[in-house]
């Protein structure tokens, strides 16, 4: 199927992203290191230092500055990339809304990680879920290959949707895992992406312009509605661009969500990110034992593919949402709340249990997942794998 002369390389997620960056040949990268995505900047700055890529690399003094520099570069019409994690993304929060509000096609890789306090460097989705309403497209990879693929795809999606895009890869689970990756020739990546952002406003084009002036109550709301409309249109655009990506590179990436064994599924697990591999194995085990279990892995969280999810889950009786973030609302995590909202009003809705797991890098073992899927507690919200208070050791 794949006609391109690809190279098969062993790469950890961060290296794969840095390699994608090199092949994207961004005009500007502004970034500040933070675990677990530091290595993206390390590898990429090495490419710059060795002259392998002609990028203006801006080593700034904070993540707020990193994204601010990206906003300036993208406003000038530059193809612009950055990466961060956790507290870094939190520090960018203010600027996230400016990037999307100005409709700037910045692409950011996020090595997803827990938020302080208590301080923790390990993986979950708390950081990116804190950015869910910031107007960025959010895609999640399930493998190192996908992190590489989606970084390239995201550039084209960003520039055509004129929206910034986050490509999320689970901290450590993907950022630091060594996997085989099919790497495309540089020319193939360049041919797919074309020259650079077009169609937007650039500070460098002809007449002087002002980007981001004051918008009073007479027009502010229309700009926000236009942003919502752009997100709604991005669902179709993501499908088109993913199809174009698959045709160009000979791949089979899902665009919005990835159903596994859902044709006849009575029960389903809905999840996001790299734990899809663990869930898929659980589905295989349960299928062998005769249970009609399936999985839906969401690829994008923003825009949220509610219609597609509704369609694929319409005939299920039991749905378990497995997610790595919480809202502390008593209503579950961000994914569970969205799934519930999407399925509301189905003629025969499934029972939905929102299982929050893996916070701060806590592993979810096969036996634990199987036990939960077999007879675990059901209800609105469950903290799967959380110890009883009495089992948590007292500080020495």
């Amino acid at each position, binding site marked *: 199927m794949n006609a391109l002369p690809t190279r098969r390389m062993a790469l950890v997620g961060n290296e794969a992203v840095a390699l994608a960056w090199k092949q994207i040949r961004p005009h500007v990268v502004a970034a500040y290191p933070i675990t677990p995505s530091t290595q993206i900047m390390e590898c990429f700055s090495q490419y710059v230092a060795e002259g392998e890529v002609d990028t203006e690399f801006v080593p700034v003094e904070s993540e707020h500055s990193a994204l601010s520099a990206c906003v300036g570069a993208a406003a000038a019409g530059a193809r612009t990339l950055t990466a961060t994690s956790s507290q870094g993304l939190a520090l960018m929060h203010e600027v996230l809304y400016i990037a999307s*509000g*100005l*409709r*700037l096609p910045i692409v950011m890789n996020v090595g997803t990680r827990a938020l302080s306090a208590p301080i923790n460097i390990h993986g979950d989705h708390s950081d990116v879920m804190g950015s869910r309403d910031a107007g960025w497209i959010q895609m999640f990879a399930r493998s190192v290959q996908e992190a590489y693929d989606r970084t390239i795809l995201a550039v084209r999606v960003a520039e055509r949707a*004129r929206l910034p895009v986050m490509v999320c890869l689970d901290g450590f689970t993907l950022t630091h895992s060594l996997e085989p990756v099919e790497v495309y020739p540089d020319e193939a990546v360049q041919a797919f992406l074309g020259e650079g952002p077009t169609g*937007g*406003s650039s500070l460098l084009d002809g*007449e*002087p*312009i*002002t*980007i*981001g*002036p004051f*918008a009073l109550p007479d027009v502010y709301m*229309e*700009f926000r*509605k*236009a942003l919502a409309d*752009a997100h709604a249109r991005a669902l179709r655009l993501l499908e088109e661009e993913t199809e174009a990506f698959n045709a160009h590179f000979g791949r089979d990436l899902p665009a919005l969500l990835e159903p596994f064994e859902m044709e006849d599924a009575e029960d389903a697990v809905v999840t996001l990110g790299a734990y899809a591999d663990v869930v898929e194995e659980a589905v295989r085990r349960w299928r062998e034992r005769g249970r009609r279990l399936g999985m839906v892995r969401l690829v994008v969280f923003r825009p949220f593919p509610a219609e597609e999810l509704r369609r694929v889950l319409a005939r299920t009786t039991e749905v378990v949402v497995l997610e790595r973030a919480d809202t502390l609302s008593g209503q579950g995590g961000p994914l569970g709340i969205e799934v519930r909202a999407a399925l509301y009003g189905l003629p025969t809705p499934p029972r939905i249990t929102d299982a929050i797991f893996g916070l701060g890098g806590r592993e979810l073992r096969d036996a634990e997942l199987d036990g939960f899927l077999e007879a675990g507690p059901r209800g609105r919200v469950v903290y799967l794998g959380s110890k009883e208070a009495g089992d948590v050791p007292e500080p020495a």
Partner: protein
Amino acid sequence: MAARGQALERGPVIPGGSSVAYRTGDWRQDRPVLDLERCIHCLFCWLYCPDSAVLVRDGRVLGIDYEHCKGCGICAAVCPPKAKAIHMVPEGEP
């Protein structure tokens, strides 16, 4: 209508230099009055004015742009004591 929709789609972008058309002079409570006979053309006022409202040509102060001066008084404050060429006068007083 199509043009308006496109404007929204492009994001908040307007032609440059729009602040020239926006007259902020009527915000003023106190007005700087320049005595050109005392002015030594050091250009401190021009340098410090946050609204670019000190008019200068060929390195010499010509006057104040009252359509944009907000009356903050920085020009009078930075005018060297030996010159004292700018003083603030409440609007409505001669």
